[in-house]
Structures are given as structure tokens and as C-alpha cells.
């Protein structure tokens, strides 16, 4: 339960009700009797009347109501700012996705119109790749902004088919860079949020395209052991320097300049992957590897 709501419940409802009703009155009177007894032993008589108890309880009730009111106002402010944030993200999402939709639609329409012009198709292919890259970046930023509000939609999915589909979407890019895609998927079906797993895989495979383009291959495996699915994405690029390994999952961390110079990105991809997998009760970790980089997704 939300911390603010808990405080509101305790201070506005539970404590004042206890104080106002007979149980609270009796409890405090009993306590007071003990207190009086103790004082009497010392020879002092505080002369506490029933009227005094009632007045004390009313004062306490008002005090707790004030504290509860404070939390209520704080809670309403929090709800207001969350709503404002959601509305802002929705608006930004709309503003970013409209030009992206236009790019994708008109690139597809042009591809159909210029189907016989191989030179034009090559150039349109570059536009398509760039729009895909932009799409990926926008999705990452929006998912990153949604943060903990992400709601999962788990369904039974063919994990092998999903991995193959995502990997194949990178084939034109990898073909250009002479990177071979090696797939060894034997995980079968599992309950998963397709969008989440796709986004994680897109980010991991996209990183190979960005940071390991000198390599010769990308190897993706999928296995299921004791009900858990394990997916590894291994490349044979330069690998992550040892001093960076502890920080790769932190936001806005992008490796050293030699690796990232001229490579697009803002350093939220892996952080987002970790958050997405955690929301999915899974993990993303960097595996020890003799060469290149190997990430493992387990859920």
C-alpha cells in the first residue's frame, strides 16, 4: 500500500475512532488509573477527573486528524504531479510517434512505388534503418519515463519464434557489417510479456550492431531449465573493459570514448532492460566470456 495512504488511514480514521469510542476511553482510563496509583505511592494526587480524560482524548483526536490531513494533502499533491507526468508522457509520446508513423508509412509506400529501381531502394533502405533506429530510441525513452507504472501483459508465447523474428529484423544491418547471425533456440513456450522481451532483445542485439560491429558473429541461444528460460546474446566484438563492467547497467553510462565515439545512444538501453526484466520477475546479467560480450536474460 502507498505510504501516504497508510498514514492517512491510521491518523484520520483508526486512531481518532479508537480515541473517540468507549474502548479508547476505557483503555486510557485504565492506564491512567495505574498512573494515578503509581503517583499515589509517591504521595502526589494529580486529581484527574473523567472530564479531563475526555478533553485529553478530544485534543489527541484533533492532533491526529491534523497529522492525517497533512498526509492527505501530501498524497493529493503526489497524485496530481503523477497525473501531470502521465499526461506529459502521453503528449510527448503522441508528438514523437506521429512523425515516426509518417516516416514508416511513406518509406513503405515509396518502396512499393520504386520496386524496380534498385538504386532508389538502396537509399530507401537507409531511411528505413534510420527510422527503425529512431523508433527504438523513442520506445526506450518512453519506457524509461514510464518507470514503475509499466503494466505487464503475460501470455503464452513461442520464445524461439519471438527471438528468431527479432534477430531477423536486424539481418539487413548485420549483412551490411558482415556479421553472421547464429541462432540456437530451444526454449519452446513460456509465459511472457511479448513487448517487454522484444524490447530487451532489440536493445541487446542493437548493442552488438553499435559496439561490436568489428566482430564476425552474434550468437543467440535459448534454453529452458526447471521452468526458467535463459537467453544469451554473445558477440565477438572488443568486449566491455573490466573497469566498466560494474557500471554497465547504470543509467547514462556509455563505456569509454573509444567505443562510443560516433555511436548513437544516450545510455539508457541496458538500464531499461534491467528494469524491464525485474518487472518481469527476471534478471539480466553480464556473463563471463573469454572474448566479446555475453548478456544473459533469465525469467
Amino acid at each position, binding site marked *: 500500500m502507498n505510504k501516504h495512504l497508510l498514514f492517512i488511514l491510521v491518523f484520520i480514521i483508526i486512531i481518532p475512532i479508537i480515541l473517540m469510542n468507549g474502548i479508547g476511553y476505557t483503555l486510557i482510563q485504565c492506564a491512567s488509573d495505574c498512573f494515578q496509583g503509581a503517583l499515589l505511592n509517591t504521595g502526589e494526587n494529580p486529581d484527574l477527573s473523567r472530564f479531563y480524560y475526555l478533553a485529553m482524548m478530544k485534543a489527541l483526536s484533533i492532533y491526529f486528524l491534523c497529522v492525517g490531513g497533512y498526509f492527505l494533502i501530501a498524497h493529493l499533491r503526489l497524485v496530481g504531479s503523477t497525473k501531470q507526468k502521465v499526461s506529459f508522457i502521453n503528449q510527448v*509520446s*503522441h508528438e514523437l510517434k*506521429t512523425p515516426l508513423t*509518417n*516516416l*514508416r508509412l511513406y518509406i*513503405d*509506400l515509396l518502396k512499393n512505388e520504386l520496386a524496380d529501381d534498385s538504386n532508389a531502394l538502396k537509399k530507401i533502405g537507409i531511411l528505413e534503418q534510420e527510422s527503425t533506429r529512431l*523508433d527504438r530510441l523513442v520506445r526506450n525513452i518512453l519506457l524509461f519515463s514510464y518507470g514503475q507504472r509499466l503494466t505487464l*501483459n503475460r501470455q503464452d508465447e513461442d520464445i524461439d519464434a519471438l527471438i528468431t523474428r527479432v534477430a531477423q529484423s536486424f539481418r539487413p544491418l548485420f549483412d551490411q557489417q558482415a556479421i553472421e547471425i547464429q541462432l540456437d533456440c530451444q526454449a519452446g513456450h513460456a509465459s511472457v510479456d511479448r513487448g517487454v522481451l522484444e524490447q530487451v532483445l532489440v536493445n541487446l542485439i542493437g548493442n552488438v550492431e553499435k559496439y561490436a560491429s568489428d566482430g564476425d558473429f552474434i550468437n543467440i541461444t535459448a534454453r529452458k531449465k526447471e521452468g526458467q528460460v535463459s537467453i544469451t546474446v554473445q558477440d565477438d566484438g572488443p568486449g566491455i573493459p573490466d573497469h566498466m563492467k560494474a557500471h554497465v547497467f547504470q543509467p547514462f553510462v556509455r563505456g569509454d570514448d573509444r567505443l562510443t565515439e560516433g555511436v548513437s545512444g544516450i545510455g539508457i538501453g541496458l538500464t531499461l532492460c534491467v528494469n524491464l526484466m525485474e518487472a518481469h520477475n527476471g534478471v539480466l546479467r553480464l556473463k563471463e566470456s573469454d572474448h566479446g560480450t555475453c548478456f544473459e536474460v533469465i525469467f
Partner: protein
Amino acid sequence: MKILVAEDDANILNALCEIFENEGFDTLKARNGEQALDFYNTEKPDFICLDIMMPKINGYDVCKTIRQTNANIPIIFLSAKVEESDRVIGLELGADDYIIKPFGVREVVARIRAVTRRYMQASNANTVDDFFVMDDLNVYPLRLKARRMHQQDEIELSLREVKILQLLFDRKNEVIDRDTLLDYCWGEHIMPESRTVDQHIANLRKRVEKDPKNPAIITTVHGAGYRFSAV
């Protein structure tokens, strides 16, 4: 079939209409929710494609208003909203599908064909399995599909492709000139270039002919048009 497309971005609207026209729909363009409802009341479309975030009246309210009087018309939402709750609201209001922006042509075409197929089958439940035979091809017009005899694989067809095959079949052994094809399959008010017909036929042949270079279903009659010669 007439499709009403409501979208506030003019470029997306034009691109969608081009895609739907290529599929064989007549299109009605609305730039906001109010215009969409006006078109719905005056033009009686068969299919509706609605953006959610629109000026004047949003897509949800347009859908709600239409569903109060028409429970059957297919409605597809287009939206930049990705959250499950948004999709659930759209589907609970009675939408048949929900396409998330950004989308490409193939996704729109696949979804529009799926919803059209469901609608046509539901509206013609008794004749849904009717088919006609062209060479070794069984064409199921209400399923928007064709199947080669003795094969299980189905060939997906657009509304326009079904119209072309139906016209050639109905007037078998006759030469159908390009103007007749344009009038019947594109509509008299649409003026595509003549080569559009040729491109369309070439694409259709690639999918329905056993050997597209030696067509048996859609043969060219040079200088005149196209013909289906029934044996």
C-alpha cells in the same frame, strides 16, 4: 466497401487512404471526431478507422456514439497510446482491433484484411464457403483467400484483388479493357494511372499464377486488356 478514416495528422490520413484505396476500399477522410460523426451519419461507411487523440471529439467518444446505434460496423483504433489500459478501454468500447503507432503498411494491411474477413464472414454466414474456380485456383471471395487445388497453403487476397478475379471470372473468355477494370475495381471517381492496373495485375499474377511468366488465369491481350480463358 466504404471506409471512414479519422486522423488529425494530414500526412498519416493521406497515407492511410492510399493504402486502403490500394486494398480496394473507397475512402472518406475526416480530420477530427466531429467530422467523423458527420460522415458516419451522411455517408454510411462500411468500416471505420479511428485515431484516439483527435480535436473536438476524441476517438473513444466517436466509437461510443457509433456503437449506440450500430453494433456491427468494424472499427479499428489507431493510437500512440501503448498502455494495456488504453487498449482495454478501446476494445471494451467495441473496437475490433487496435493498431499502435508507429506502424508500417504491412501491419495496417494485415489487420485491415483480418477485420474485413471477419466482418464479411459474419455478415454472410451461409455463403462463406462459396468459391469459384480459375484454372487450378479456388477463389473464396468472402474469405478474401484463394487456394491452389490439392494444396493446403492459402493465398491472402485484398478486396480489390478479389474484385479483379471476380470480374474476369464472371466475364470469362471476354477481353476486359483497362477502363472497365478501373471502373469496376477502383471505382469511377478514382482516377489512377493506367500503369497502376498493369502493376496491380503483375503483383496479383506473382501470387496466383503457377508460372507468372506464362499466366493461365490472367492472360494479356495486347493492346486490348486482360482475359480469363476458361477451358
